[in-house]
């Protein structure tokens, strides 16, 4: 017999799952957990949405969500993937944005604004390539301290 977990407890458990490509961000920081529900029979349904259609981390994230829930004593969690509404960087939490910046990745900016350099905070930056080391990032460079840096694209 397993005790029924509250929604908050489930969210607490999920905060242990990180994005494998940006390990400072949890799945909650990223905003890809769209819903958590605890049914009358204590079963748990977690609804997630992909960041990009081709994001290779999605399958791994799903596996890790399942693993932490099972480890916490939830025997058979259901993980659903939805596409609608499409994920947007607006769902990234303020905490997530701060963690990104400390990690050296400029967080998403309002459209048409240059991201500030995560090292010297200058806004005098330029785009080197709209595509970067993962689907969600672009490559930028600071024109003042000259450091190239990753920018988490506004999406």
């Amino acid at each position, binding site marked *: 017999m397993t005790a029924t977990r509250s929604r908050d407890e489930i969210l607490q458990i999920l905060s242990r799952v990180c994005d494998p490509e940006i390990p400072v961000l949890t799945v909650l920081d990223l905003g890809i957990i769209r819903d958590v529900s605890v049914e009358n029979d204590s079963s748990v349904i977690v609804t997630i949405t*992909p960041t*990009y*259609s*081709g*994001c*290779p981390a999605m399958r791994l994230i799903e596996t890790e969500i399942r693993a932490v829930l099972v480890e916490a004593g939830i025997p058979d969690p259901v993980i659903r993937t939805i*596409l*609608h*509404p*499409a*994920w947007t960087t607006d769902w990234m939490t303020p905490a997530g944005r701060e963690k990104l910046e400390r990690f050296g990745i400029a967080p998403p900016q309002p459209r048409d604004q240059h991201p500030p350099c995560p090292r010297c905070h200058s806004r005098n930056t330029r785009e*080197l*390539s*709209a*595509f*970067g*080391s993962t*689907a969600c990032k672009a*490559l930028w460079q600071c024109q003042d301290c000259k450091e190239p840096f990753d920018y988490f*694209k506004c*999406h």
Partner: protein
Amino acid sequence: MSAPDSPLFLFARHMGDNGLILGHRLSEWCGHGPVLEQDITMTNIALDLIGQARLYYQLAAEMHPSDLTEDDIAYLRPERAYSNVLLVEQPNGDFAHTVLRQFLFDAWHLPFLHRLCDSPESGLGEIAAKAVKEVSYHYRWSREWVIRLGDGTEESHRRMTQALDDLWIYREELLLPSDWEQTLIRSEIIPDPDVLRPEWQHAIHATLSEAGLPIPQTPVIQQGGKNGIHTEHLGHLLAELQYMQRAYPGQVW
């Protein structure tokens, strides 16, 4: 004898085929791009397109009466059962050919997806709403490079002009509906190409003119891909794409 496939199934599979084949072509650049940033760009676009193809194939597999899976659709069909447009299967050629192929595809793909977002068929609309964000980046990239190369050096201009001569005949097929598309257009499930055409034509002409490239005058149109009649290149591509599943049937990661 099983019932014929529905127009909706055929369309979802066709959209997946366009993404898978173009994505595969772009992935052939991996490790060979002219500079690192462009190598990364082409593989990123490949990843987006293959991700989108998976969504379309999953949708097609769900609506199919048999227990078909997305992998069956991707890996276990002969060439004649692929319905991608001829444009996307054309070889990479030089960087100019790859850039122009991408631009001709994106110039159609982006406005098409914008309209497909409103499809009453929610499965299609949801994929389109996801894909349109990614494809707007693709279009921005390919358009910029057409201009940069067309308006670049003598050699880059010559290579772009050659690419235009080689690929121009394939662009029209994107706007020539197959029988199953006709059915979906009539029931307003997918966008009408006649509505799309002015915007598409304008985007192409404006970009070529900014790039200083001549708009080819040939009346020749090459088509057939939507009905499974392909150029010789697709068979070679599939030989590589399907190799593992053909050599070791049913293998999984």
